[in-house]
């Protein structure tokens, strides 16, 4: 009892130093999951997915690009960011090339240099779907034909642009939130705001933490859980999945990995590790430094456990069934007639899935992609099967080659 009281007092003072408003993370509904990636099993593609569609993206001189680094969907289009060509490419849902936006389209007389950009954000309203590109001091809005419709100055101090809005359109989630109290500023990883008013503040942090310590990112920390008004949140060097709802943040899943895959308990608090974390993971390449890409699809929790060691054989992308406890390794899915005997990801053979995981989950579909180099090598190693490909793929294999554009794979996961 005394111990509890003491720690409570310490907590209280520690918290008091930073901000009196820190909200306690609710862990009452927490579910503990024990996951051993090595024990993950395989399955036939048709056991996991209801539908598999290969969508080769048209290759023309104008549309040629490297790989898909960021994928978003509109009603009728795929919108892609490619880091190699520093361009946004727009394809129809059947893979037909529509338009491209690269820095030459931003280049105006008042801009001295060509402005490269490193991503895009899709702005959807009820009537319109626009691509917003941040470059230099401005935002540029493009329509899906690749035409510039608007440009305006970015308000550097206003981070509202990064906020996630909930359906009520009043509540928003502010990552890396700054609260000002007179001259003092305090910083939090997550704030829940209701019309700019701070409803709850979580995880205080030091402003210059990236300068004083090493952080290994493993993707976007906030992802859409695809439950209504619910987001998932993941922290650095932490195996917990948090759930953000309009009023609170709570601990949804606590994942326990086998000891030889887990970082030491004091990894975040022990100063010995400070600024030496990369060295630590270099020496312990099988330890998981973070998780990413969580999606809850029916009873299936999809996630990726990331390790520093570069090993295409390791089972990093997993599906954990919350009902049965079954663990499936995505790279070990076995191609069958549903996928025309082609692998549904390039996991285990090439690097796209290993690096990115699934691009997104939207409207009941998961999306991944792989290169034509991978596509043709898979086709070559199954040449003895005499597979009849669907017309789209038959045409692709006839007219394209291993240097053509990547192929998008659209998968409809089963929910049970």
């Amino acid at each position, binding site marked *: 009892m005394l111990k509890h009281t003491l720690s409570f007092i310490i907590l209280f003072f520690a918290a008091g130093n930073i901000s009196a408003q820190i909200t306690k993370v609710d862990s009452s509904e927490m579910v503990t999951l024990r996951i051993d990636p090595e024990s993950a099993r395989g399955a036939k593609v048709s056991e996991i997915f209801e539908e598999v569609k290969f969508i080769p993206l048209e290759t023309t001189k104008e549309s040629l690009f*490297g790989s898909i680094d960021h994928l978003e969907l509109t009603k009728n289009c795929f919108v892609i960011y490619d880091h*190699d060509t520093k361009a946004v490419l727009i394809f129809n849902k059947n893979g037909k090339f529509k338009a491209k936006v690269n820095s030459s389209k931003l280049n105006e007389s008042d801009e001295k240099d060509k402005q490269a950009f490193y991503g895009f954000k899709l702005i959807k309203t009820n009537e319109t779907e626009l691509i917003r590109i941040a470059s230099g001091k401005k935002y540029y809005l493009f329509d899906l034909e690749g035409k510039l419709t608007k440009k305006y100055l970015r308000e550097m101090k206003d981070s509202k642009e990064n906020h996630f809005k909930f359906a009520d359109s009043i509540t928003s989630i502010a990552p890396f939130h700054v609260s000002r109290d007179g001259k003092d500023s305090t910083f939090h990883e997550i704030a829940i705001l209701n019309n700019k008013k701070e409803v709850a503040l979580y995880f205080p942090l030091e402003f210059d933490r990236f300068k004083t310590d090493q952080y290994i990112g493993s993707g976007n920390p906030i992802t859409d859980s695809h439950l209504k008004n619910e987001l998932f949140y993941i922290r650095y060097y932490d195996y917990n999945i948090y759930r953000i709802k309009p009023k609170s943040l709570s601990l949804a899943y606590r994942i326990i990995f086998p000891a030889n895959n887990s970082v030491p308990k004091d990894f975040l608090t022990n100063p010995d590790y400070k600024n030496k974390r990369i060295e630590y993971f270099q020496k312990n390449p099988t330890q998981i430094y973070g998780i990413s890409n969580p999606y809850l699809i029916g009873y299936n929790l999809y996630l990726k456990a990331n390790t520093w060691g570069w*090993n295409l054989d390791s089972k990093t992308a997993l599906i954990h069934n919350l009902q049965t406890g079954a663990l499936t390794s995505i790279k*070990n899915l076995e191609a069958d007639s549903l996928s025309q005997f082609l692998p549904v990801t390039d996991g285990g053979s090439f690097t796209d899935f290993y690096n990115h995981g699934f691009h997104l989950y939207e409207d009941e579909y998961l999306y991944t992609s792989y290169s034509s180099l991978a596509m043709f090598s898979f086709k070559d190693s*199954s040449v003895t099967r005499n597979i009849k490909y669907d017309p789209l793929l038959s045409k692709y294999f006839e007219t394209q080659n291993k240097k053509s554009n*990547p192929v998008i794979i659209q998968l409809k996961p089963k929910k049970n």
Partner: protein
Amino acid sequence: MFKILKLIALLVSILIVKPTLAQQAKPVFPGSAKGVLRDTAHNYTLKSATVSVYKLADSSLLSYQISNNYGEFSFKNLPVGTSLQLEVSHVSYQTLRKKFTIPSDKNAIDLHTLIINPKDITLNEVTVTVPPITMNGDTLEFNAAAFKLDSNAVVEDLLRKIPNITLWGDGLITVNGREIKSVLVNGKPFFGGDTKVATQNIAKNALEKIQVYNTIKDKTNPLDSTLTMNLKLKKGKEIGYFGKISAGYGTDNRFDGDLSFNMFSPKMQLAIVGASNNVNKSLNNINTLMTNSTFKGIGTNSDYQSDFRASGINRANAGGVSFTYNFIEKPNWELRNTLTSTYFIQDRNSDVVSNTQTTTSINTNDKIYEQSNNRNRFESTNQNFDAKYELIKRNKNLTLSQNFQKNSGENTGETLRNARNAEGMLTSTNNTLSQGNFDNTSFNFLANYHLSQDWLKPRRKFKGINITYGLRVDDSQNENSNLTEFKSFTNAASDQRFDRRYDKNINTLNQQFDVEFPNLRSIFFGDKRLGGIDFAFKNQLNFNNRKDDNQVEDLNGNTNTYQRNTYLTNKLETNRIDETPGITFTKTINKSLSNRYSKNLSFNFAPKQTFIFQDNKSQKSFQNLNRTYTRFLPDAFVNYSNYQFGEHLKNYRLSYNTKIRIPNIDQLAPLIDSTNLYSIQRGNLNLREAVDREISLSTNHYDQTNKNTLNYNLSLTAGFTNDNIVDSTFIDDLNRRTIFLTNANGRKYINFYGDIRKAIKFKASELQLSLSSQINNDQNPGFTNNAFAFSKNLNTNSDLKVNYTYKDYLAIAVSQNYGTYQSKQEAFNTEYTGVNMASTISSSYNFSKRLTLRSNITYNRSTSSNANDINFTIWNANLLYRFLKGNNAEIKLAALDILHQNTSVINYGGNNSFTIGTRNVLQQYFMATLSYYPKQFGKKPVKK
């Protein structure tokens, strides 16, 4: 010539008959087998497992492969109606064995799904057989135990057995078409890093496995990496010794003996070598001796043999010790701490006799013919001691090295020369007798510290520094006495005779300070991009001090005593300072498309200014000169590389550089020694520095496909020199030459080099083709008797090599060398041309694992526009027999220059002259050699 062709034809026919027989012995089998591997515990098909097929009767390995992306395997060329065993292995699974027979009516069997069980950790499986090849993460492993070879086989024999590996005629190793950049033993370079020392000595039975892995530089492009081969020794075998002791004696008192003994432990490597011969085998350093004393297993190889082209008869004794200590037992690319040290002593004794005739044009009509008979005896002792310490820690690198050399000896020489005019009349003779001894020592120390950017701290603005300090001290002592007699047959008054003694001492001290600050942009401009241009500052400072002390005495004919020659006796001190600051601007443009290509274009422009100060202090006042030179010396290059995934890597480079050469005191104001009237050197105080400018374009192509690769390199270099320091020669009708130096423009050259290499691998044999070619074209200005003339020279040299190996039995190499020269003096209307060519066929045939016959024949032909053709053929053959249990002993019977035709031809052209002649060379001898190869890997078992 016809005889030779007949002989070659005979040899080829003998060598070809046997392989066809061997092929009949191993027919192509019609059977095929396929199946799928499945891990039912985890419910997936198993890829990257090793599937091997053995003949059940004698458990010999027939074939193996790795299961594909779908867990499938498919074998062809298997025998039907025979009991076979299939073995499946994977690092995480229990080995699966299955007996099967391919039915002879169908010639095919489908084994369907084979279930393979994960390894039970508590149950330690006893592995009876190991798979030949496994994938362990990203490492491809070839397990030595799976390949059944002769008990005396070495690693090289194993490499030849592995279908994925090509061992090239020149020692290069490729795995699936990709070049191995380094071969390590237990993660460390082995005895200096020469591949052969490891692959031809380490017993196959001491080897656990061969690991092949990428050292990945760029994770986004797994194909952009260098391939490393590591030979992992069995536990307990990481300590041992190997070597060779050999002695041979032959006709004409020819002898040849050598010793090489090497010991190694996990941290230490020690090599002791020694050799002595009088058969023109070069013994220049420890590595030559180590690489030529390797055990070799049962393979075919061309041998280390006498150099029949070396001039004279050389007798050499040599010995040395090499020591390496790794402070870190398992070093890697970012942590290494090594000390290496070698000591080498060599004693050489040579006898060279040569006869030459040189034809020189002195004007459009007149030529002078000079005949020269030369006899030279030379004896010397060289000692060399090196030590190097290297410490590498992530982004820091410290290297300290030193070298001490001592070279002493004596020589005697006799030269008889005479000159004739165009009518063939003897005009003069000039004979020299010389005797001397020398003692040179040299000490060299170099320290380099390199600090590069810490990639864990990319924000740090200071990106690194590179500092070098070098010190060199040379001390040379030369004592010589020359007796020279010049006789004129047209004018007796110009006869001269000298008996002169020289005592020359030179001390040199050189210090070098280089400092470089790379990637300065971030320090001066922070995060500004500056259009992607980065720059570096480099300063090179060099101090050189040289002291000459020459004592010269002449014999006074009257008193018969030597008296000091006050003109040639002199003390001279030269100080030279070179200071070169410079800035290097770089810009790199990368363009890549994932899984398609990666292209890189980089520009480098390095303007620098050099300041040279030269100061001479001499007892002779006319030598008290000081000179300063300064010049802008820009260098630049553009490099373009294009890497197409899975296809090829191409590189193009265009570079430009400038250099200056300043005249030294012997060119400006020498003390003129008039003993050699056929060549008197005079100086010129008005000499300016020569400026060389060179531009070169090169390209190379590396094939990245897996089979039958084609690789080539091409380069084209052109240069021109302003104010070149050239000879202005005055020749009188007695062939007395006085050479003045002067500056002249117009030196130009253009050189081409190309080589191309292709390998074609068949089932049991391999064909390798390589062609290299070189063309040099230059134009040199000069003056002869005040007439300005360009001498235009064109030299070419081409080499074609074809290597064919069939299994372990046979190796044939055919090579053709073709060289031409052409020298033209338009002003004198003269032209000299000549051709040298050599055709070689060498072969090696193993009658059994113990008996080998080797033979090589070279047909040489030398033609010249102004002399008779010279043709000769050298044929060497030897028979080797290995005996004792471990094949440790070898007896070799060698017959060299069987046809007794070796003559060393001198045939070359120069500025307005050409020279032809012969010199004494090694000729026919027969020798019997006995060798013993002590070998032990791992500790000796204790006898009870």
